[in-house]
């Protein structure tokens, strides 16, 4: 049984998101090998009834997008369809940045986002990890990708274009901060 097939078996059995690190551990291979196996499996599954969703660190097996209306008719689950404006904006920031702190989200939106973040966490649309002492980092979950009908972040609408613009913004911000620092280091000159 090759690695790709083993991954397929594990993901099917598991039925929930699993980190690539853990997957590698279970299969006793390196993370790099697991990544390659996943890529292979993703290829093999194209055009099939099941697919794989990947966030930056997790992976889960799901029904294919083409089957969505078929399964929707079978499921009795209540589906969330409404995110609201604040939720959509917050999700957009977390998705396109890949991960974000609350301060990043507040900065972009200009309002306190703590409650909308809490709401998205509870709904499982985002996840949080602690990152040293600086508080939480918020990340997209498998669930949000599945609700958008995409298998990976790079399938987001205008992904490349937005990423490019974000880089430009970051550069401009860094440049502005540097100007400030220079001024502060030579206060006499500024007076």
């Amino acid at each position, binding site marked *: 049984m090759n690695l790709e097939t083993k991954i397929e078996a594990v993901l099917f059995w598991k039925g929930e998101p699993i980190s690539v690190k853990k997957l590698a551990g279970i299969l006793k291979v390196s993370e790099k090998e697991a990544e390659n196996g996943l890529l292979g499996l993703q290829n093999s599954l194209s055009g099939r009834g099941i697919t794989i969703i990947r966030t930056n660190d997790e992976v889960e097996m799901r029904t294919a997008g083409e089957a969505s209306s078929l399964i*929707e008719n079978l499921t009795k689950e209540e589906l969330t369809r409404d*995110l609201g404006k604040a939720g959509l904006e917050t999700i957009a920031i977390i998705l396109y940045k890949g991960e974000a702190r609350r301060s990043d989200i*507040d900065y972009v939106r*200009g309002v306190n986002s703590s409650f909308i973040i809490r*709401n998205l966490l509870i709904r499982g649309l985002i996840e949080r990890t602690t990152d040293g002492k600086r508080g939480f980092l918020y990340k997209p979950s498998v669930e949000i990708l*599945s*609700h*958008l009908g995409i298998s990976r972040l790079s399938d987001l609408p205008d992904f490349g274009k937005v990423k490019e613009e974000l880089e430009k913004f970051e550069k401009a911000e860094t440049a502005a901060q540097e100007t400030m620092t220079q001024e502060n280091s030579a206060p006499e000159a*500024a007076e």
Partner: protein
Amino acid sequence: MPFAIKHEKFNGPLEILLNLIEEKKLFINDISLAKVADDFIAYVKSLGDFPLSESAQFILIASTLLLIKSKSLLPSLELSEDEKGNIADLERRLALYKMYREQSVSLKEIFGKKILFARNERKIQPVFSPDESMTLSNIAQSMMSVINQLPKKEFLPKVLVDKVMSLEEMISNLTTRVANALKMSFKDFTKDKGEKVNVIVSFLAMLELVKQGIINVVQERHFDDILMETENVGLPKY
């Protein structure tokens, strides 16, 4: 979720500013910001009561708009590097917010339309297997930490209050500077003298208005307004 509902209805300062600019079909720059400054401040005034922590954000942005407007009325007015930095930062934030807002509309279009479903729960046969952490004292400790992390009433962060207080000084300062610049350049207003003076006089009144808003924020800060997450208060970086 109640708070989400609240924030759904609540339009933040950047959003309002962006709406004003887009209504006039303008690009984001100092010229367009000077044009919408009056409308923005009028809007804030019409709001009256809203969460204090949010009104501080409005005041911060209103103050930057006042700087932009001063400069556009009196080109001879000198701005400090800090002030120029604030203006550039506001323009950047608006552009960034605009981009995300547009993207959020694209996301809305696809959200929930084509869901990729998880498999149903696998049938399980429970096997009692606690781990080592499952002790009475660990459980009690965990419960306490959950309780400590529940959203609580929280005062307006001191840093933000300080920032707003220093704005009061900035506005007073700006009032003097504008009044002086007006005297200095009075002779330049050969054409439309009366009209221009009127514009500036009403601008001075607007400065006073924002100053009053600042004072209100500072005075009322002991009233807690909304429940906030206790996560170390992520201050927007201005």
